[in-house]
């Protein structure tokens, strides 16, 4: 349990730096894929500093409060995960956090922001089955929902949960707001929704949103690593390698795809979830 607290504190302190750095790597690699030079690696941090230095204009004063709640709940999610408590609970808190983001979007009553927020809800509906199934998969394989116990059984789960892994990586594209599933907001300009759910967020509020995203990304990468850890150093190295590989894959997908309609996103994701995680689940239950 003591180790858990150390991990949790490390998460709180380091996650924004890791997340921001990964974001910088993302922008650099994307630029290289498009044969551009690209911004410096620390660009995301420059952006954040600038945003904090600007005047805050918010359409509705409660927006800041809602975003703060989103931020805190995201923090709680990560802390719970890295301190080794219930993984199911982590994802419930994560969903609650996303709901606050939805409210922060609709409260402004801007049409772009509202449509973005509604799409955010649809995205939640899309990835939630895969997320819940992943939790169930861990339970079936490890006999516990507890992250601590899952991580310390001494075997990598990827051999028993490959289908769940594929499903989870698939929905990661939605969670990380990458093309083709970046329907609610996007890092790129000139979309049909301007900036989607973040349209009415300026200066400090946008910075807060950005930092929360970094926390979320690090948490999600933690879940990816959970598939590979087996208590040994090699397990840790492999999980870190896989984590970088998955991150690169997301960047590649982002740069290769145009955005999809949300209807297609919903159908495709559910089909993939059913045929990977679902089939894996059935096999797991039969073999046990």
């Amino acid at each position, binding site marked *: 349990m003591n180790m858990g607290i150390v991990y949790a504190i490390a998460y709180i302190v380091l996650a924004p730096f890791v997340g921001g750095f990964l974001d910088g790597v993302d922008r650099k690699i994307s630029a290289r894929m498009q044969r551009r030079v690209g*911004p410096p690696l620390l*660009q995301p941090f420059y952006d954040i500093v600038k945003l904090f230095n600007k005047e805050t204009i918010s359409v509705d004063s409660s927006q800041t409060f809602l975003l703060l709640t989103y931020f805190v709940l995201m923090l709680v999610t990560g802390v719970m995960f890295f301190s080794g408590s219930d993984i199911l609970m982590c994802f419930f808190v994560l969903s609650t956090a996303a709901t606050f983001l939805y409210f922060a979007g609709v409260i402004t009553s801007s049409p772009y922001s509202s449509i973005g927020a509604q799409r955010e809800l649809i995205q939640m509906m899309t990835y939630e089955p895969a997320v819940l199934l992943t939790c169930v998969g861990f339970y079936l394989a490890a006999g516990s929902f507890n992250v601590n116990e899952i991580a310390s059984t001494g075997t990598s789960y990827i051999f028993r949960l490959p289908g769940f892994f594929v499903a989870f990586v698939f929905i990661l594209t939605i969670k990380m707001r990458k093309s083709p599933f970046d329907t609610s907001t996007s890092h790129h300009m*000139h979309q049909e929704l301007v900036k989607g759910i973040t349209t*009415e967020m300026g200066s400090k509020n946008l910075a807060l949103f950005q930092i929360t995203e970094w926390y979320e990304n690090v948490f999600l990468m933690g879940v990816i690593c959970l598939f590979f850890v087996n208590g040994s150093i090699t397990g840790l190295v492999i999980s870190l390698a896989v984590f970088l590989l998955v991150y690169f894959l997301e960047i590649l997908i982002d740069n290769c795809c145009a955005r999809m309609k949300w209807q297609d996103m919903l159908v495709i994701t559910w089909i993939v979830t059913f045929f990977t995680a679902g089939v894996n689940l059935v096999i797991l239950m039969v073999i046990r």
Partner: protein
Amino acid sequence: MANITRSPWLLHYDGSSCNGCDIEVLACLTPVYDAERLGVMNTGDPMQADIFLITGGINSQNQATVKQLYDQMPNPKVVVAVGVCACTGGIFKECYNILGGADTTVPVDIYVPGCAARPQAIIDGIIQAVELFQKRSDDYKAMVKEKKRRG
């Protein structure tokens, strides 16, 4: 004072132009000129923008829009007029509906001449705007501090 010159986000508005300058603005973001290496991002959102880039002149119909976009941008902010049209009204100056350059409606800080303005000139204009942006930001911070001190 924090160095914030590394992250200028643009809001590009296309007034009464022939579209020539707009293409050049977009050319700045292509691999050849790659303005993103300077941290430049083209956001479509006034709430998140630092530099207001106007191409084309002001006519009686878009005047209100330009004014509103300018007002929606949070301080500190800088306005850049790209192309002769945005500077003075240019080739369309004599038209019955044209009121003139962008400075008829919003306070323009940097003028980038040319018809069409070359990407090099536009990037140069953006860099000058960034310097001004830093100065304004320092002033703005000092102002906020002063306000706090007075209570």
